[in-house]
């Protein structure tokens, strides 16, 4: 018989609400709380070995200890699959479900399943981690969707436990993680592409084999009156950094930004700066770093009065943008925006390669 382990927070374990959010990791034999209803949805095909709970606050305040305890408890129960949630639109719970699934999938090498509303911040973490062993099903925003979520989760969990091969997010109904998978097909790419094109021309629905990210509109920030009297900063994804790459940026998939002081500089001297980036030929940028960080032009415009004295921020912000995942880039953008606002910057020049 298929064995599962179920993870819940204090609330769905039936132990209490916010006042119990500090509860450390605990193990209940068999099914408890939300896991009971899940076990009914599983029917005869599977059983729940144990239900592990952890308080929403405890997990985030003692993450290392919590994950260690959970890994030990799951390991001891030897399940074929781990199930966490559903977290609906509860942010702390959604994040902990995803992080627990990721840790268990990596350390115990078993498939893990969770479920939550698409706007739960846990979904961003799920996409950022893009763990091929972790699946997240969409749910309603609130517990109104409980019965529906548990039914779909039970069916999915049984398939994972049986090591069935799971197809694309589109066909299988889980939330896409942006993992590209190879599939065998008897029809060559040109035929499939022409098929899609014909459907598009006839306004018929079709599914892309490589769905593009859907981009939301950012409402334009209001313009600056008199830019010469405003504080301006430069941000770039070109990867231009001091020679020697002191912060050890990689040529792709970076997850942090840095800023480098230019307060005393009139220009960037070739040989003192280099471009770290795996997505374009960096030879030009190495010869003349101004192609990515146009400090010479900024200083001239300062002298002309187009930028007011002392208005150029004394450092520039950089990350090599190559292969950055949209979720990471969004976070970096938010972090940089917070840093800029802290120092009263009012407008940004952004050089993208």
């Amino acid at each position, binding site marked *: 018989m298929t064995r599962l382990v179920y993870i819940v927070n204090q609330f769905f374990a039936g132990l209490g609400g916010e006042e119990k959010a500090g509860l450390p990791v605990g193990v209940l034999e068999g099914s408890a709380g939300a896991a009971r209803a899940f076990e009914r949805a599983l029917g005869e095909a599977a059983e729940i070995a144990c239900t592990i709970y952890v308080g929403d606050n405890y997990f985030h305040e003692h993450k290392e200890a919590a994950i260690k305890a959970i890994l030990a408890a799951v390991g001891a129960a030897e399940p074929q699959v781990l199930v966490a949630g559903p977290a609906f639109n509860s942010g702390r719970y959604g994040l902990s479900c995803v992080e627990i699934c990721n840790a268990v999938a990596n350390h115990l090498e078993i498939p893990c399943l969770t479920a939550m509303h698409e706007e739960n911040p846990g979904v961003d973490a799920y996409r950022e981690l893009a763990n091929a062993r972790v699946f997240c099903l969409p749910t309603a925003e609130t517990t109104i969707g409980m019965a529906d979520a548990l039914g779909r989760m039970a069916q999915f969990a049984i398939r994972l436990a049986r090591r069935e091969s799971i197809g694309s997010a589109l066909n299988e109904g889980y939330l896409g993680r942006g993992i590209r998978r190879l599939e065998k097909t008897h029809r060559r790419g040109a035929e499939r592409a022409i098929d899609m094109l014909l459907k598009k021309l006839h306004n018929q629905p079709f599914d892309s084999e490589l769905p593009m990210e859907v981009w939301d509109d*950012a409402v334009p920030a209001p313009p600056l009156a008199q830019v010469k009297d405003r504080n301006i900063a430069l941000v770039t994804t070109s990867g231009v950094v001091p020679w020697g790459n002191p912060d050890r940026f990689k040529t792709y998939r970076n997850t942090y930004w840095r800023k480098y002081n230019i307060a005393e500089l009139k220009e960037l001297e070739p040989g003192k700066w280099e471009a770290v980036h795996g997505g*374009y030929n960096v030879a030009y940028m190495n010869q003349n770093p101004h*192609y990515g960080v146009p400090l010479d032009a900024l200083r001239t415009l300062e002298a002309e009065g187009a930028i007011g004295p002392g208005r150029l921020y004394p450092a520039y912000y950089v990350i090599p943008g190559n292969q950055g995942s949209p979720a990471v880039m969004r976070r970096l953008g938010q972090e940089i925006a917070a840093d800029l606002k802290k120092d009263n910057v009012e*407008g940004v020049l952004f050089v993208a390669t």
Partner: protein
Amino acid sequence: MSKEIEKAGLPVALISAMFPVAQQVRANRIVKGVSIPHPCGDPSLSKEHDARLRREIVRTALKALEAEVKGPTLFSPPLATGG
């Protein structure tokens, strides 16, 4: 990244040679850069012309920050060849 900065209320002038992509991802103030490996300038020009082109690109970006826009808007620097 630039959109998150805009969402925080700071106008961003995005200098990029991949301006169709910038439009597609819905950046708002987009300044036409020269080429992907050298958005701010053109190494095939003389040193002096290259520096002048770079200055015009940055000047256009500063003007873009002063412009009222409703959605993705492309600003072309006067000297840019676009090549």
